[in-house]
């Protein structure tokens, strides 16, 4: 994956066909995991905090629904263009942020499904098929995050 252009109008990346297929497949599967209950405080237990936490989780649930619609938009032909030798991704700065949020939702979601391991390599050998799927998706999302940011 290679950055071709970056200006105020947006970002343009080039990737090979395999990368394009993987990205499309990842976005297509979002959300891969159930949403997790988010905590707003680690120390506070007063009623206001409970109310704030409820609001946070409602807001995040809504945001996830919005991301699902936006994920479909990112896969549209004018954003992810298939060419002769590969794919071109043309996204605005806002869409790039949406893409990061979707990719990291997948990455963190898979990590949680794996039991939030400290070591990100499979601990059992060989891992179960289900575990292997989560490890692969987690790593794939990380690969795209890193590729989008490294340049």
């Amino acid at each position, binding site marked *: 994956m290679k950055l071709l252009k970056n200006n105020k109008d947006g970002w343009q990346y080039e990737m090979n066909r395999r990368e394009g297929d993987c990205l499309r497949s990842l976005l297509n599967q979002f959300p891969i995991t159930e949403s997790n209950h988010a905590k707003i405080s680690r120390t506070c237990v007063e009623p206001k905090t409970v109310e704030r936490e409820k609001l946070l989780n409602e807001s995040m649930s809504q*945001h996830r629904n919005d991301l699902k619609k936006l994920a479909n938009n990112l896969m549209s032909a004018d954003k992810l263009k298939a060419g002769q030798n590969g794919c071109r991704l043309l996204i605005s700065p806002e869409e790039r942020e949406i893409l990061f949020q979707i990719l990291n939702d997948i990455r963190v979601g898979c990590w949680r499904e794996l039991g939030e391991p400290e070591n990100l390599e499979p601990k059992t050998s060989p891992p179960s098929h289900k575990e292997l799927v989560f490890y692969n998706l987690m790593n794939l999302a990380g690969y795209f*995050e*890193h590729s989008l940011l490294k340049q």
Partner: protein
Amino acid sequence: MPTIAEPATKPKRIVKKETRSKDDLAPTFYVICWNDPINLMVYVTHVFMKIFGWNKQKAQKHMMEVHEKGKSVLVREGAEKAEFYVHQLQNYKLQATMEPAE
């Protein structure tokens, strides 16, 4: 009969300023980002730059603090603003909370 002339300058009326005790002030909160093994360092730096408008150097300093010390206090704000930042950070799936400052 002697007359008493009015002084040229009158003493100023003393207006007692109302001061507020510490308890009356609106509570403030620390917005804290906690370490985890899953979020990429380059990603955390990017999110800090986006949400707080920090330059790369400042964002990296806080990211390294999260990584090495387990957490970093990002900002101190009133309840509403702190809540806003926590929502933003959690939308990016960073482990962020707001904790009372006092």
